[in-house]
């Protein structure tokens, strides 16, 4: 029997257990509030939110792969589409779109149509530099770093019979930043995902035993 194909974000969202949206929003708000109290500097809070997101992302990727059945993406464009259509839908119920590809195909924007994290939130004047949803950028960064994508160029390297290079697997290092944020006065939530480099995976056992 051939393995099941990838499932749509809606289907998975309907099948997983969900938590009350307000509880989620208020819990996240309390976390940010506490971070602001503890760290005081808005930049520090941004960094900490990103780090928290990163820690979530490196675990979330396995759940995402297990539930959604996606196979390895052929290129970064497909990766971004999968994140927007399946990932955001499945975990947050958000429908997101991918736009603004650059010429290389390494940088794009993901636009979120709504954002459950920011219900009831208004930023006061003292927090003007705060990226309230920075946890999301960390999540994407962490998830992609754990995810092995493909790189064709190393395939052309000569493979000796004593050394296996894991030559089609690369780890994707990305930089994810907020371009537009409604809490800061813009009209939409726009994340920019930029692929920095693809680090080939090292095969740990290099001897020829």
């Amino acid at each position, binding site marked *: *029997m051939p*393995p099941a194909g990838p499932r749509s974000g809606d289907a998975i969202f309907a099948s997983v257990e969900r938590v009350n949206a307000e509880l989620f929003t208020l819990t996240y708000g309390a976390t940010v509030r506490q971070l602001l109290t503890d760290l005081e500097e808005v930049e520090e809070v941004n960094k900490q939110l990103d780090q928290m997101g990163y820690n979530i992302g*490196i*675990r979330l*990727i*396995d*759940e995402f*792969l*297990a*539930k959604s*059945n*996606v*196979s*390895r*993406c*052929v290129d970064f464009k497909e990766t971004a589409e999968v994140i927007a259509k399946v990932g955001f839908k499945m975990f947050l119920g958000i429908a997101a779109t991918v736009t603004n590809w650059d010429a290389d195909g390494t940088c794009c924007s993901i636009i979120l149509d709504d954002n459950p994290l920011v219900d009831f939130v208004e930023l006061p004047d003292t927090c003007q530099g705060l990226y309230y949803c920075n946890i999301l950028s960390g999540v994407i960064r962490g998830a992609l770093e*754990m*995810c*092995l*994508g*493909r790189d*064709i160029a190393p*395939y052309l390297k000569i*493979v000796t019979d004593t050394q*296996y290079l*894991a*030559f*089609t*697997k690369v780890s994707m290092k990305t930089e994810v930043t907020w371009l537009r944020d409604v809490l800061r006065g813009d009209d939409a939530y726009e994340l920019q995902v930029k692929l920095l480099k693809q680090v080939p*995976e090292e*095969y*740990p*056992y290099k001897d020829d*035993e």
Partner: protein
Amino acid sequence: MQFFGGSEISPSPPAPTVSGNNAHMVYVFNRNGVCLLYREWNRPLHTLNAQQDHKLIAERGNLGVPQLPGQGCSFHSFRTNTYKLSFMETPSGIKIILVTHPRTGDLRDSLKYIYNLYVDYVMKNPLYRPGSPIRSDLFITTLDQYVRSIA
């Protein structure tokens, strides 16, 4: 009770044995080749020590790597006279290997289910450090029960 579905779309159940226990061993490796879990239920021969054994099995996982760009990994199991080895690799580098009785059917769904168990009991545990060997009793118990049930 085992049903042999002729026209059903389902993995064919393995041939039942007297003891009802088909699975011999399971290995779970992460992307760096670190063996996260090794469980053994029925291993008649011990010829390799643990280190060599893990290296050998991890290399089996890399058999699936040389392939044309653009295609998925096509290697998912092989069979010898004494055992069948089923393998699954996720895009995040987690490799799950199941060694069973040679007459076992297609275990890809079982491997997916084991991956789901891994996600639920191991990955969602905040006290688990990714990349370290799995010590979760819940995971091991559930895994044992599941593997016995597919036998």
